[in-house]
């Protein structure tokens, strides 16, 4: 067989070096070509990660036993011997950028699986990669070079389950620096400065939301095939909004990153919520931020689990004993008593505040004419169980009032209690809040309630410096809400509202708070919808297709109303005509729809639908092995077959 010259460039020789010419015959297999090239390059190194990349055809030659003939390679082919794993800058949902090695040769789906394994994120099929938004470099502001955490030295993810050391993948436990990186992944980031939110924020209409989805990478092709270059920046995001089997013990990173993605979606109004919901989200963010600072990073290895539960057990015991001891020591249930002023607004009366001697016991407030008469019958008793408590405070005006709405048969009785100073106020306020939930002063949460009220008062006192991120106790409440509410309210106005919502979450543990946040997020009406602008067959105007985990919805672009809903369980089949880029779907009852995609490639729509079908098959099979083949079957399109 005739020998001919094949030119192969080798990256290691430098960018300007001419390609090596090796003499080959058509029946030489790819492995042989690589061997020849390596010999000729005369470089001694580990070549095991290298593979041949065929530039003109934009494809990898990954089958070493295939002959050049079988691959269809002739003398005009320009091949390149290059590593399959290259460094990539990966922007995580939390805003942290990691520099790590990703696989450029396998389909994105497998590449993401590898990345997730490295980062200890379970259920990698729910995530994918997307291109960042093109940054408009108008101002040429010399952005401080973004912080980069380099973990390219991590070993390539093998197929073995990552070994855990100290509750983190072995690699991270090696040095203090890498350990710090892992902790950063597993612990939520401090609240961003309001300006950061404002800068990232763009008022999004549904069309713009649809554009986000055009940036997803194709799961069935490799990074290099899709034009990703070494050191490029890509975003790692949760793509399918169906989070399977979350377990706080094993999912420290996954849960944190999911929380971060949800938090930013709310701060940037990628998903809409009401003002009341925003306040709850703000309160939870504040709480999570605060607890993250104090609560120790919880390691997640089985032995630690046992230890954890043992410790918890011990803690409970200690708590039980100590509280009993406390009770015994003090001999009586704790009480509050003070001179306070009371005001009961009634129609047509303008009586002011009157001073009495107040005692707070269990869940009941009683008041007497004076301290001396406190052994007699009280003037009145008020049981606060089930009442509504609201602050009426102005730190500047030294006004510390508690507004109580106490339910009675006739309606709600409105009562104002005026305290003299902050300390008094925070104790009485905490007592009122606990009592409204039926808890007494003896409850263990009393002191933390007092503290949280004081820290909120402190927040009102100091005008927050503009750039303040969340430090120990102080925080700018503008960092917790979206720019819409930053504009609508001053921090001082926001604080009491967030505090109001905060009282319901203040006692949650870190993971409980994160899960609560995710729950409320998932209960929002628009949760889990990915939008694509489409043109339905036979229609003249663009419409929006919303894709969720159980249904497709058709949305009128001009009004924003949902026109039609189709559920997947009535879907018979869907087809993609790749030539005319049209998706056709048939539903039960002879319902047929067809549309072409305007803002995204129809592969993306196809992948979304197939992906959600894939996700729904997971719950039934209990095994943890990922059925990659099925995923590609459902999402692959024509290349897969």
């Amino acid at each position: 067989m005739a020998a001919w010259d094949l030119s192969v460039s080798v990256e290691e020789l430098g960018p300007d070096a001419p390609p090596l010419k090796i003499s080959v015959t058509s029946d030489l297999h790819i492995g042989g070509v690589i061997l020849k090239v390596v010999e000729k390059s005369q470089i001694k190194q580990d070549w095991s990660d290298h593979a041949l990349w065929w530039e003109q055809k934009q494809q990898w030659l990954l089958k070493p036993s295939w002959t050049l003939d079988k691959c269809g390679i002739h003398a005009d082919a320009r091949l390149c011997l290059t590593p399959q794993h290259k460094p990539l800058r990966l922007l995580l949902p939390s805003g942290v950028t990691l520099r790590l090695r990703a696989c450029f040769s396998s389909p994105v789906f497998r590449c993401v699986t590898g990345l997730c394994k490295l980062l200890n994120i379970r259920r990698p099929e729910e995530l994918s990669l997307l291109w960042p938004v093109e940054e408009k470099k108008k101002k040429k502001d010399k952005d401080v070079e973004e912080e980069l955490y380099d973990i390219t030295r991590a070993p390539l993810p093998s197929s073995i389950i990552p070994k855990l050391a100290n509750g983190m993948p072995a690699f991270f436990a090696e040095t203090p620096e890498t350990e710090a990186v892992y902790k950063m992944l597993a612990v939520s980031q401090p609240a961003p400065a309001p300006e950061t939110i404002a800068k990232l924020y763009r008022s999004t209409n549904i069309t713009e939301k649809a554009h986000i989805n055009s940036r997803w990478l194709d799961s069935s092709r490799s990074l290099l095939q899709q034009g990703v270059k070494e050191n490029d920046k890509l975003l790692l995001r949760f793509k399918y909004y169906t989070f399977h089997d979350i377990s706080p013990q094993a999912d420290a990173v996954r849960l944190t990153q999911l929380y971060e993605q949800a938090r930013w979606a709310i701060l940037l109004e990628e998903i809409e919520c009401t003002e009341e919901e925003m306040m709850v989200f703000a309160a939870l963010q504040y709480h999570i931020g605060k607890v993250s600072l104090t609560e120790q990073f919880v390691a997640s290895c089985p032995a630690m689990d046992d230890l954890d539960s043992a410790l918890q057990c011990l803690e409970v015991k200690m708590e039980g004993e100590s509280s009993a001891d406390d009770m015994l020591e003090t001999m009586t249930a704790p009480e509050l008593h003070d001179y306070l002023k009371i005001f009961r607004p009634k129609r047509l009366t303008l009586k002011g505040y009157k001073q009495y001697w107040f005692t707070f016991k269990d869940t009941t407030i009683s008041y007497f004419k004076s301290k001396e008469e406190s052994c007699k019958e009280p003037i009145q008793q008020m049981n606060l169980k089930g009442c509504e408590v609201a602050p009426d405070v102005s730190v500047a005006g030294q006004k510390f009032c508690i507004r109580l709405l106490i339910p009675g048969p006739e309606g709600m009785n409105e009562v104002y209690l005026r305290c003299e100073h902050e300390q008094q106020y925070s104790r009485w306020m905490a007592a009122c809040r606990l009592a409204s939930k039926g808890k007494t002063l003896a409850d263990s949460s009393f002191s933390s309630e007092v503290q949280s009220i004081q820290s909120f008062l402190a927040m009102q006192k100091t005008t927050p410096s503009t750039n303040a991120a969340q430090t120990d106790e102080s925080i700018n409440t503008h960092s917790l809400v979206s720019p819409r509410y930053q504009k609508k309210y001053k921090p001082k106005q926001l604080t009491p509202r967030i505090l109001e919502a905060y009282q319901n979450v203040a006692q949650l543990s870190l993971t409980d708070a994160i899960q609560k946040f995710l729950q409320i997020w998932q209960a929002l009406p628009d949760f889990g919808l990915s939008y694509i602008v489409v043109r339905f067959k036979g229609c003249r105007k663009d419409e929006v297709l919303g894709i969720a985990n159980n249904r497709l919805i058709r949305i009128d672009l001009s009004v924003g109303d949902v026109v039609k809903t189709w559920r997947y369980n009535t879907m018979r089949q869907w087809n993609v005509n790749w030539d005319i880029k049209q998706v056709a779907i048939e539903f039960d009852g002879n319902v047929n729809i067809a549309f072409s995609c305007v803002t995204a490639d129809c592969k993306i729509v196809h992948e979304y639908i197939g992906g959600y079908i894939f996700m729904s098959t997971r719950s039934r099979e209990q095994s943890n092995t990922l059925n990659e083949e099925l995923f590609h079957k459902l999402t692959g399109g024509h290349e897969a077959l």
Partner: protein
Amino acid sequence: MDDIDAMFSDMLQEMDLLTQSLGEEAESAPLPKPPTIPGPQEMNFSVGFTDFNASLHDLEDNDLDALMADLVADISATEEKFATEKDTLKGSAPVAPIPSQPPSNLSFPGSSSTLRQATSSNSIAATPPPPTSKPSKEELEEQIKADKIKLALEKLKEAKVKKLVVKVEIMDGSSKTLMVDERQTVRDVIDNLFEKTHCDCNVDWSVCETNPDLQTERGFEDHENLVEPLSTWTRDTENKVLFHEKKDKYEVFRNPQNFYMWKKDKKSLKDMKEKDKEQLLEENFCGASVIVPDLEGILYLKEDGKKSWKQRYFLLRASGLYYSPKGKTKASRDLVCLVQFDNVNVYYCKEYRIKYKAPTDHCFILKHSQIQKESQYIRYLCCDDEWTMTLWVTGIRIAKYGKQLYDNYKAAVRKAAGSATWASRSIQASSSASTPSPTPKARAANGHAPQPAVETKGSSNQTSFPPPPASMETLPPPPPDPMLPPPPPAPPSTNKVNQFPPPPQFPQSSFPPPPMDDLPPPPPPPPEDSELPPDFLPPPPPIFSSCGGEALPPPPPDPIASLPPPPALQNFASAGGAPPPPPPPPPPPAPAPAASKPAGSVRKVAPPPPKRTTPQLAAPSVG
């Protein structure tokens, strides 16, 4: 020792108080109530009666017994307490008193205050657990003492459990009277009523409250406590407790599509497959968070303090009820929150067209449960038709209670299925009650591993059921063991024989049989009850024998006379000589008759076939 003595005389005073109040209770005199305590703190001992005598009169015998047992238990608990106290004193005498915290000092002041609560308020103060170990030499002695204190505290806790005698009206105009204690859920009360009324036990039965002032009705949810809301009624209330079937109680779980796909044509949803319904429920109730039906539409809202009703566009969200103000879009950011559901309940209203000039009679209100009269704090809403009202009220209940509602439903279905089993089995029992109980061997022959009967049966009552005689094939198989896999498939005819009629609204196919193993543990078998028919469960709290209650007489004319005379120290010492046995256990939880079911009804629902993931579906047509 001085302070212990002081303590003791304190205790005696407490005791005095308690006996007095008990006497008053029995005489139906209102409890001594501090004159300044406002309404909510008042405690009615009975609900639905003009006076307590009437309520006692109405009680059925066994309830009366139970009530008496309770009262006696209260007294005996007090006696017990003093006995222990006495013990404690004796016990601590040889030990050098630890001035800082002698155990008796430690626990009793707290408990005496809880005693007071028992008669005047409904809150439970946590009783401090006694110290478990002491570094002293007499550790053992201390331990015994501590145990006694603990026992006494438990009894005190028992004694201060609040109980109400409630008259419940039933559909046909009759009424039943029963005693409800504050630990019982509405579910327990319904189960209790099932036994008293012998109704069909379907899941629609519910306990409701009506308020004639506001013309409202609300069905209590099964997980709620009954005593708490009833205690907030005013003393002169005309409110009533009803027991009847409410179709809308669990309709959302029978036909979730009508709620979750309410926008679609109802006719097209009528024939939805059971499989699809289950999937809807799974999607909306079994995820990380419960999904609330996306209700929206025009409702009428009664304006604050005015007579007029205004149309507004309302939207239901998990976080509350919202409306979109005039001239604004219905985008989330523009919505105004009318009310959040943490502190309010939703009530159906009657005849508001006349009462409040409402546009229609399909009204519902949202209010704090304690509000009993017209008030500016009530939100009045009016719907165009009855179905819309059901939709919104159900939606609000889902938003308020979440998954709890679904759990309640599943428990109710289990209960209903269980009752049906009981019904069919009691027939069996009467036909061949004399046959011996199944031996482990016989059961093993049927493919079961032998198991102790007590464990496998709901209660000892079951042992009286006829065992399957030797020829297994011709007779229904024995109840499958809850812990074991179902018996090998029996011939279909056998299945038929054993299949009990399902409750009316529940086609057999629509519900997978409840999992057998997550039922509540069966109540401890009462020793001599086995000849009772099954529907007599649960037995009344065991009678308290050692307190003179051997055969409980009807309430003595003058209870005070029968009570131990108050503060004679010797008296208590003697009472303490032989500590009475523990007080009656709390009324057994819902009996668990569903613990065993005929094999025929145990139908494993095959996991739904995987979604259409066939290549054909995924195969894109290239061309």
